[in-house]
């Protein structure tokens, strides 16, 4: 016959058993809260921007089918003539971006111009606290296309990088880019997407056409320790605000 003391010990052991099992399951719970599907916000929005034709009010960089200067040429096709020398009408280059601030992520980092590595990928600054701007694409203030800023999520040698928290940046977050002329270009985040590196829409991200936008990118997703690389790219799209 079990006494009250015995029953108490039994209940205590059951409690400890339950608590122990719950604790043991903790890593599973952590994973469940960090599923890739949950890491995206407004996927597809950026693709729509990339294929949009900017409004005629936005500037003159895009070919204007309603250019009034040409309409006067009656029915004969007006043939643009360049020259003498046939040289390209020189377009003054826009000032380059030099600094990126994302207050909600505590990022205030220098931006440098980057190009293409010998392997054909975009070159990224060696310093994990410096952000690379794709110099062959638009600069802030351009009337069309995507201004691309890429930063390290981390590096094996130096630990977490400037875009370590990019995968948590929310829609609506304020982003500002300062250009060499000290002008501050303000943007607002509209989407966060995650793509396997084999399926990143690079033509859209590096697109020179479509609505003016800012694209921030870094690596993310599962890490392959053999190749020392991440499976995915995290892509944030922001629009001028």
């Amino acid at each position: 016959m079990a006494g009250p003391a015995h029953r108490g010990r039994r209940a205590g052991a059951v409690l400890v058993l339950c608590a122990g099992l719950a604790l043991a399951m903790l890593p599973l719970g952590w994973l469940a809260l960090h599923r890739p599907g949950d890491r995206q916000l407004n996927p597809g929005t950026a693709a729509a921007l990339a294929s949009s034709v900017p409004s005629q009010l936005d500037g003159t960089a895009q070919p204007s089918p309603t250019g009034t200067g040409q309409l006067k040429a009656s029915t004969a096709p007006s043939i643009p003539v360049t020259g003498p020398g046939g040289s390209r009408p020189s377009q003054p280059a826009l000032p380059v971006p030099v600094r990126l601030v994302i207050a909600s992520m505590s990022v205030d980092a220098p931006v440098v111009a980057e190009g293409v590595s010998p392997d054909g990928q975009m070159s990224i600054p060696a310093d994990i606290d410096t952000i690379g701007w794709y110099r062959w694409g638009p600069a802030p203030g351009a009337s069309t296309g995507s201004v691309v800023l890429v930063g390290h999520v981390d590096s094996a040698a130096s630990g977490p990088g400037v875009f370590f928290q990019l995968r948590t940046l929310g829609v609506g977050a304020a982003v500002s880019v300062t250009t060499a002329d000290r002008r501050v270009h303000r943007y607002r985040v509209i989407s966060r997407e995650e793509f396997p590196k084999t399926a990143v829409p690079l033509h859209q991200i590096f697109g020179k056409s479509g609505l003016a936008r800012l694209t921030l990118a870094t690596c993310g997703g599962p890490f392959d320790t053999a190749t020392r690389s991440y499976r995915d790219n995290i892509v944030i799209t922001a629009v001028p605000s």
Partner: protein
Amino acid sequence: MRRLISMFGIVLAACAAMLLGGVPAHADTMASVSVVHGIPNTPVNVFVNGKSTLANFKPGTVAGPLQLPAGTYKVTIFPAANTAGTGTPVISASATVTAGANVTLVAHLSAAGKPTLTPFVNDTSTVAAGQARLVVRHTAAAPAVDVRADGKVAFKALTNPKQAMADLPAGSISADVVLAGTSTVAIGPATLNLAEGSDTIVYAIGSASAKSLALVVQTIDGLGSAPGGMPAGSGGFASPDNGIPTGAWLASGIGAALALAAGLRLAQLRTGR
């Protein structure tokens, strides 16, 4: 009413765009055609199939591109004073343009100094990210030349009317033209801004004996491509797999140990009754 007017405006604009060739209506049957005037001191009128197409076209200039249906065209070129397009033309030639092609018709002097028309097909295949295409066309009354970029020979022994081509890193280069195999500068140097993702086509025009050698530059944009990727992490600190916090694993271990101990104790209590 306002909506009606704006709709009418949109339709009108679309029609205008079609007429002007801004929107190729049948990209599969059209060709993109440009014209380069490479004969010094001779403004001309260009007639295509007997129709005045380019009036008072100045030497050293580029006209186009124009979207034309694929086919064979009769091109006649008269001095600018001849607006009727009758009599003996400076050049009379026929040019065939194939569907989808990008062609430049160059009115220039042959090596012997005779006015002629040469069609060149432009390579509009994509250029790798960060690169620019440079094409040099010898269309001058001059012997074989070498083309140098930043002092180094880039294209060797080019003769009229041949071309040479290379994809190079985008940026500015200083180019000059020397007599083949020598360092005797015939044209230049000229600074060329090779814009990323574009094709810069340089024509050597004029006549060596008349000392009228010069360069004409034509550009074709929109050939660029995106970089192949964005490698921005090598640490693995942000991975959701490896990223399960050490604390979670620690708690998990402690929890498992506790559960095991509690289970054993339960069994003990049951058998020890």
